């Protein structure tokens, strides 16, 4: 496979794995773990394989045109930076999977966990390998979504639900800001392509839109990477299972924001605006996070705040704007991912073995789990920046950068002091982690005696700690080349000189490191008594809770303001709303006449009037008006009258050269009438003359207003259509349809060719709507409860039944059978006739008026006629109609026909046609569009019959219910 294809495979693998894991049985723990593990190992292998190409030949690119006119293409781009992140995502992902296999309990639905984890992994990979910024934002939001699912995995606990919701709200809102920011960048540069954007740094920085774009992009990055003041979601996300925390808060999720800042660093950094937003945010996050971490009583809470602090450190480095600082940032990102993942896993083991994460309850665990304790101590030392460990080297680089001069401002000059202070804090909380958990007296009150975990559960930590040591001792050999490649990718070619070594001589940074170590130990000793007292939360800041503010804002926005808006603007009265909508429609329709001056009628000479047409419409108008008049008290009459208007419409279609429409209208008219007739039975009796003398004034006023609105709309519509009809027909796409219907679509009925060929995708959408409407009707009627006064049999039926019962020689139902004898015979025999008619309409559809829609409705009429003639019970005994099958088959046939064209390398729904020579019959057109139309036909039959049968069935059901109620009494 080519490198490009491999890259695509690496992106698709996790999603495919996720889908597969989702289908595993609920307790297939091992199968899911093996699947997830193989995916991550395969992903790592691909990424490792691609290294040579990335390092030697520059980025691997895959380009697939999608919407080139909008600058949106599916682009993958793996450069050094993306490579480094990708290997972290897959590598640590593989370790997390192994760890999670042992961590997750047998009772949890583990395949779902792995399914979410894999999808999250895929989204994360998507972010780093996207070569198009809009595409990156898409994956960005996917990570928000899947992290929500992961954090809320134990959704039976309130903390998990709240934490998940908060993480989603904060990071997805940031994602929206990022999207707007990216759109602004695209507007400035004229492209969303990463390569082009990286080449347009000056253009971007000089633009007036630079500051807004910067602010929006940073909002995205800060929310994702938990920078102050958006850091509060991260500690709450600790409600997630520990493997999730180990993954999300070390190598992925929170590093997405960091990645984004690195990606755009060459083009957006280096300005004052960048320096004075990113540096303070990073600095405050660094100090606050470290300070708060010291005072946590929850083990994972301590690690969470330490993560915030380290993210602040990286952000601060990126904010400085110097290439060396960026190198340090990349390096620290890598180091932090490694030691933090191992620490989270260690915390998870402690939790797993002791049943608690509370530092007040834990102590002296060294004697029970010496191996895990040693590993955790090494990792914590790396976090504190102890020499010979990886954390030391990148922290050293950080100190060097803090000392170096950047802008010469007060903020810049004070950085060394702040950096040392942060160093002190980080040593203190690392000491607290080690001494609080592993030393001191043996723990009391634990559920069971802790012991070392299963070996394979500890293996990921062993490996990660080994890497910490290797990087810490021989950085130049182990990590040097990869870091160089990543730096080359980030800094767009210009690599500064830097030296990766443990020993640089006696320098100021080394002094700072020692001050931090000594200060940290001193601070820990000084605070020990205070910390042991068991107070929760840091002093001074205990009351300042981001969560509380967040929730207050949420409640205000989504509850109080919403309620206030509803109270002032809302109404539960539909008529008032409809009145406004229709009145607005009238105004909108009138606006062209008002704004554009007097728009007259067109100059087209009118068509000579046929007397028949005038008479026809006189009838139509009379029908419509009387239907409007009768609809309240005489429903049946109104139904007949509306049918009359429908017929006039139908004849109009015939008259004005639209035979297809006429056929369909006529058939639909029949079905609609039957449908409404079936519904009439369930409506309440209407009492005439509610108002004894005349209606009160407000009621009259309302009616006058409605009348005026109705006349207004009618008048506007009549005028508008007259103006349009008297204008010459403009050039439109119709010309293409007419000229190519036969050549391209192989049919002479242009309307049908448009439906099943040129615009088949629209038709596809339309049949889906029909399908959904049918299913909704079906679902609604399953739980149908008729009004109590409608449950009884209708009056006529009761009279008939009473007559049957009174006569000794008659049985119940004889009268109706007698009445219907001859119609029933005829209607039964009509079934094959109508069915043949349907087939005929279907077959001729491509060349003559007809087609799938018309044929489908026809066949459903054939079914309905049986119901009317013989009654629901008889039909259901003799004829099994399975409307859901018809619908499913129809949808599958249509979609399958469409997808079939992929097979031949054409776009969806491309049709093919030819003429078949069948003996005796002659040449028969055979287009693949005909197959598509068959799907339309089947679906229309299914949906129509489903709706009608479901409704017809209700009288049976309610009869049965009534009988059951009587029997019970």
């Amino acid at each position, binding site marked *: 496979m080519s490198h490009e294809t491999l890259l695509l495979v690496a992106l698709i693998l996790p999603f495919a794995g996720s889908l597969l894991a989702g289908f595993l049985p609920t307790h297939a723990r091992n199968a899911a773990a093996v699947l997830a593990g193989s995916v991550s190992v395969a992903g790592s292998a691909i990424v490792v394989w691609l290294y040579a190409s990335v390092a030697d030949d520059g980025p691997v690119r895959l380009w697939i045109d999608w919407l080139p006119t909008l600058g949106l293409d599916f682009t993958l781009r793996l450069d050094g930076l993306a490579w480094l992140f990708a290997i972290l995502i897959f590598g640590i992902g593989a370790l997390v999977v192994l760890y999670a296999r042992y961590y997750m309990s047998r009772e949890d639905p583990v395949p779902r966990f792995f399914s979410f984890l894999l999808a999250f992994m895929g989204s994360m990979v998507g972010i780093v390998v996207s070569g198009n910024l809009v595409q990156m934002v898409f994956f960005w939001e996917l990570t928000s979504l899947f992290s929500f699912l992961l954090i809320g995995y134990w959704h039976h606990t309130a903390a998990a639900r709240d934490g998940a919701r908060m993480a989603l709200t904060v990071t997805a809102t940031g994602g929206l800001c990022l999207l707007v920011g990216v759109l602004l960048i695209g507007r400035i540069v004229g492209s969303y392509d990463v390569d082009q954007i990286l080449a347009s740094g000056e253009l971007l920085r000089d633009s007036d839109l630079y500051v807004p774009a910067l602010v929006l992009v940073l909002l995205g990055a800060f929310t994702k990477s938990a920078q102050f003041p958006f850091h509060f979601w991260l500690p709450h996300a600790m409600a997630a299972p520990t493997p999730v925390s180990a993954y999300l808060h070390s190598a992925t999720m929170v590093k997405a924001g960091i990645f984004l800042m690195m990606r755009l660093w060459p083009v957006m950094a280096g300005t004052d605006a960048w320096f004075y937003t990113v540096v303070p945010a990073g600095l405050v996050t660094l100090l606050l996070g470290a300070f708060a971490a010291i005072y946590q009583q929850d083990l994972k809470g301590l690690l969470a705040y330490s993560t915030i602090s380290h993210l602040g450190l990286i952000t601060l480095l990126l904010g400085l704007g110097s290439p060396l600082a960026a190198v340090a940032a990349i390096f620290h990102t890598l180091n932090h991912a490694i030691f933090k993942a191992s620490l989270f896993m260690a915390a998870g083991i402690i939790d797993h073995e002791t049943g608690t994460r509370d530092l007040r309850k834990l102590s002296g665990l060294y004697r029970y789990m010496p191996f895990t304790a040693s590993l955790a101590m090494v990792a914590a030392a790396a976090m504190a920046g102890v020499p010979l460990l990886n954390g030391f080297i990148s922290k050293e680089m950080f100190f060097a950068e803090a000392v170096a001069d950047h802008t010469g401002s007060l903020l810049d000059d004070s950085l060394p002091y702040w950096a040392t202070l942060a160093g002190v804090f980080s040593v203190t909380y690392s000491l607290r982690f080690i001494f609080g958990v592993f030393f001191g007296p043996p723990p009391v009150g634990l559920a069971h005696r802790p012991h070392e975990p299963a070996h394979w559960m500890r293996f990921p930590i062993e490996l990660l700690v080994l890497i910490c040591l290797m990087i810490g001792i021989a950085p130049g050999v182990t990590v040097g080349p990869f870091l160089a490649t990543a730096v080359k990718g980030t800094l767009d070619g210009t690599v500064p000189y830097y030296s990766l070594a443990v020993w640089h001589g006696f320098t100021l940074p080394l002094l700072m490191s020692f001050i931090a170590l000594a200060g940290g130990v001193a601070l820990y000793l000084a605070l020990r008594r205070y910390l042991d007292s068991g107070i929760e939360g840091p002093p001074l800041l205990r009351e300042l809770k981001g969560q509380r503010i967040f929730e207050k804002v949420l409640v205000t926005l989504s509850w109080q303001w919403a309620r206030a808006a509803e109270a002032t603007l809302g109404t539960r009265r539909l008529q008032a709303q409809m009145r406004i909508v229709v009145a607005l429609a009238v105004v909108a329709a009138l606006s062209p006449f008002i704004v554009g001056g007097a728009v007259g009628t067109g100059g087209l000479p009118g068509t000579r009037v046929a007397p028949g047409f005038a008479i026809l419409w006189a009838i139509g108008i009379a029908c419509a008006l009387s239907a*409007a008049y009768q609809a309240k008290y005489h429903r049946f009459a109104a139904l007949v009258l509306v049918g009359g208007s429908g017929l006039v419409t139908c004849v109009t279609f015939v008259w004005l*050269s639209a035979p297809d429409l006429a056929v369909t209208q006529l058939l639909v008219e029949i079905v609609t009438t039957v449908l409404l007739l079936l519904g009439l039975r369930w409506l309440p009796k209407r009492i005439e003359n509610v108002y004894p003398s005349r209606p009160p004034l407000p009621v009259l006023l309302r009616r006058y207003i409605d009348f005026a609105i109705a006349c207004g709309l009618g008048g506007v519509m009549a005028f508008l259509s007259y103006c349009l009809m008297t204008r010459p027909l403009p050039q439109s796409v119709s010309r293409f349809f007419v000229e190519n219907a036969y050549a391209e679509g192989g049919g002479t009925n242009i309307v049908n060719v448009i439906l099943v060929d040129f615009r088949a995708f629209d038709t596809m959408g339309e049949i889906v709507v029909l399908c959904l409407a049918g299913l909704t009707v079906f679902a609604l009627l399953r739980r149908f409860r008729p009004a109590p006064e409608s449950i009884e049999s209708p009056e006529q039926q009761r009279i008939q039944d009473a007559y049957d019962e009174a006569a000794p020689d008659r049985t119940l139902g004889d009268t109706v059978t007698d009445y219907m004898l001859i119609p029933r015979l005829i209607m039964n025999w009509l079934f094959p006739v109508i069915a043949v008619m349907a087939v005929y309409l279907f077959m001729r559809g491509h060349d003559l008026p007809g087609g799938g829609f018309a044929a489908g409705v026809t066949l459903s009429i054939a079914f309905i006629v049986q119901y009317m003639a013989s009654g629901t019970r008889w039909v259901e005994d003799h004829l099994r109609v399975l409307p859901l099958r018809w619908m499913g088959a129809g949808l599958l046939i249509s979609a399958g026909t469409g997808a079939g064209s992929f097979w031949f390398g054409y776009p969806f729904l491309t049709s093919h046609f030819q003429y078949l020579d069948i003996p005796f019959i002659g040449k028969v057109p055979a287009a693949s569009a005909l197959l598509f139309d068959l799907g339309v036909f089947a679906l229309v039959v299914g949906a129509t019959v489903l709706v009608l049968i479901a409704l017809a069935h209700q009288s049976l059901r309610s009869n049965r219910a009534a009988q059951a109620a009587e029997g019970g009494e």
Partner: protein
Amino acid sequence: MMEMILSIGIGVFAASGVWLLLRPRTYQVIIGLSLISYAVNLFIFSMGRVRIDVPPVLKSGAPGDPATLADPMPQALVLTAIVIGFAMTALFLVVLLAARGRTGTDHVDGREPD
């Protein structure tokens, strides 16, 4: 003047439909919606102008001449609109019946006015 007759017809259909749409009983609304959909379908259809005896069906296999045929595009639009209109009527009818069963009234607000 066929155009005049047709446009008046569309106007009357629309006006009757809107009048019913603004009424308080659900059955009136469903009848009104039917009338409005006739009006709107005819309106869209009339965008192809009034043409008599020229259905958009090609006589032979030869490519068609747009000038001698009725405009097929509005017809294709209306054809699907008719079927979707049926689906909408069916759905609305069932919602209407379910609401009537649940609330005990056929008023559009789901409760009788005070």
